């Protein structure tokens, strides 16, 4: 098991390295205006000498490959540079914001699974009945309704009918858990709506597949009740693709956290990215992009490893 994990980690090194190259050179070359000029034009440096000093301070002198190597070296030691505008360390700001985003994303995915798995199971168990059609129809609807629209409706009608508005001041989970949960529960729930559609459909097809297997017939034949058959035999064997789909949905949920942090004024990584993009705050943009990229690479490793955990056959064949 640990051998598999190590193997998987080693394989992800080129991807992670590739990500740093992609992000650095994409942001430093493809952008038509010089992000650095822009930043310094709006900062205090109008005289060339001061600008040169600032460029050196931020490590923006010399040819691009040299800058890249310097930047990579600092990242490896945990230093993501500092903001052009506030001068604050990007690393400490990121560390401060990551828990908020992770809480939102993980909470949304968990909530969606709690809704989708029972619905998918029911849909498959009562195949081609009215509940099945209802679940399948609503699955597509869940996917099609944009989360930010639901959020807008909640904000508009919440204030019209209940005189409710989201709190402005954010309370972290470790400071005031109850206030934090009251604040985050609604965005979590709405963000969790769009993954539900795909999950229902996937659980349904998967359960139908498993129901056709011989061991299900055996389980029934030896006299197990419906409940036992479903929970002990069917559900467990349908879990593998659900793990995959959760992995596949992560990019969508991550994107969702960006939007929902903006709507509900939560100080997460997504808000950090949006704010910095507007000001062309180079190191912040690079660091947040890297963060999201790393997150997905890491999530894929977790998915692969949990595969091996759920299904021993994968572990054995990969040797």
């Amino acid at each position, binding site marked *: 098991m640990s051998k598999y994990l190590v193997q998987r980690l080693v394989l992800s090194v*080129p*991807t992670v390295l*590739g*990500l740093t190259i*992609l*992000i650095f050179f*994409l*942001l430093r070359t*493809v*952008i*038509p205006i010089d*992000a650095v000029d822009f930043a310094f034009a709006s900062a205090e440096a109008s005289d060339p000498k001061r600008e040169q000093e600032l460029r050196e301070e931020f490590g923006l002198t010399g040819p691009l490959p040299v800058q890249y190597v310097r930047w990579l070296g600092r990242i490896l030691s945990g230093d993501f540079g500092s903001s052009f505008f506030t001068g604050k360390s990007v690393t400490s700001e990121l560390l401060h914001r990551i828990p908020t985003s992770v809480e939102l994303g993980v909470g949304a995915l968990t909530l969606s699974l709690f809704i989708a798995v029972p619905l998918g199971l029911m849909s498959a168990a009562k195949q081609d009945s009215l509940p099945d059609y209802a679940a399948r*129809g609503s699955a*597509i*609807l869940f*996917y*099609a*309704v*944009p989360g*930010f*629209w*639901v959020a*807008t*409706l909640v*904000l*508009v*009608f919440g*204030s*019209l009918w209940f005189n409710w508005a989201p709190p402005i001041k954010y309370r972290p989970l470790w400071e005031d858990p109850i206030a934090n949960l009251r604040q985050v529960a609604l965005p979590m729930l709405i963000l969790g709506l769009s993954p539900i559609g795909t999950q229902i459909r996937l659980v349904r*097809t998967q359960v139908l597949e498993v129901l056709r297997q011989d061991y299900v017939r055996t389980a029934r034949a030896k006299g197990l009740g419906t409940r036992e058959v479903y929970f002990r035999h069917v559900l467990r064997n349908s879990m593998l693709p659900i793990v995959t789909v959760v992995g596949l949905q*992560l*990019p*969508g949920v*991550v*994107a969702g956290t*960006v*939007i929902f942090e*903006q*709507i509900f004024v939560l100080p997460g990584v997504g808000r950090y*990215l*949006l704010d910095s*993009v*507007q000001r*062309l705050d180079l190191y912040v*943009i690079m660091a*947040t*992009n890297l963060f*999201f*990229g790393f997150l*997905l*690479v890491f999530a894929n490793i977790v998915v692969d490893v949990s595969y091996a955990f759920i299904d021993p056959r994968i572990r054995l064949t990969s040797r």
Partner: protein
Amino acid sequence: MASSRAPEVAVGQAPAFGRARSARRYARATWRLIRRKPLGMAGLLILLVVAFGALFAPVIAPYSYDQTRFTSRLLSPSWSHPFGTDNLGRDTFTRILYGARVSLGISAGAVVLAKSIATVIAITSGFYGGWLDKLGQRLVDIWIALPTLIILVTLIGMIGSSPGSLVAIIALANAPGSSRVIRSVVVSVREEPYVEAGRAIGANDARLMFRYILPNIAHIVIYSSTVTLGSVILIVASLGFLGYGVPPPHPDLGGMLSGDGLTFMRRQPWLAVWPGVTITLVVFAFNVFGDALRDLLDPRLRGS
């Protein structure tokens, strides 16, 4: 295109028995299609209506999309303003029509560009295989490790949003992921006997790729385009919502819902309803139609 082709898919090549008879055949084929795929055909109908409205917006729209009238601000729906008006007195129905036009135009452009790039990458990479394919796949791995919306917000935020930049950047962000799906089909088609037969009669690589393989992966490209269109429309709307849509005064379905309008939406809630309903309907329609298309074009994939 889809509307005129759909019946053919169901009946195959109908022999011409005179005009009246073939018309009846088509009517019957259409009816059978509606019975077999009611949801998919409902999706097609929605798409046709929206596409018609978007295409002929300048003719249908009762007002101009940037015509402001301060005497008729924030009105509720009425006969003269079917969807009401916004905070500048602009007709919401007109703005939705133009918004759909802009959103569909950008999304369609981006998807066509993305799928073209993806198909070229997929065919060359899948056909030649070897180190080229391995290298290409590693690059795709790296590119899709970045969530689409993140890289879009970054690039569009830095470059600036115009219809052109939106189309180009969305296509760029989508192409690598799309190429992966198409490549997997190319790899299996490459081994088919008819490709070998083509090679045996002396077809060169280019001919093999574009006359033998391309026609046999076209159905995947078409089906995946409809589904991708649905998700790209959502992405365009999300970008608009975050303030990276087409610049004002052009209407943007996502932008119409964004934070700036919130105070006005509280005074005129209909403003919060129409853009969302439109986006939802279109995305829903693309998905159910895409599913039906997949079943009809490739029965092997049915139900997957």
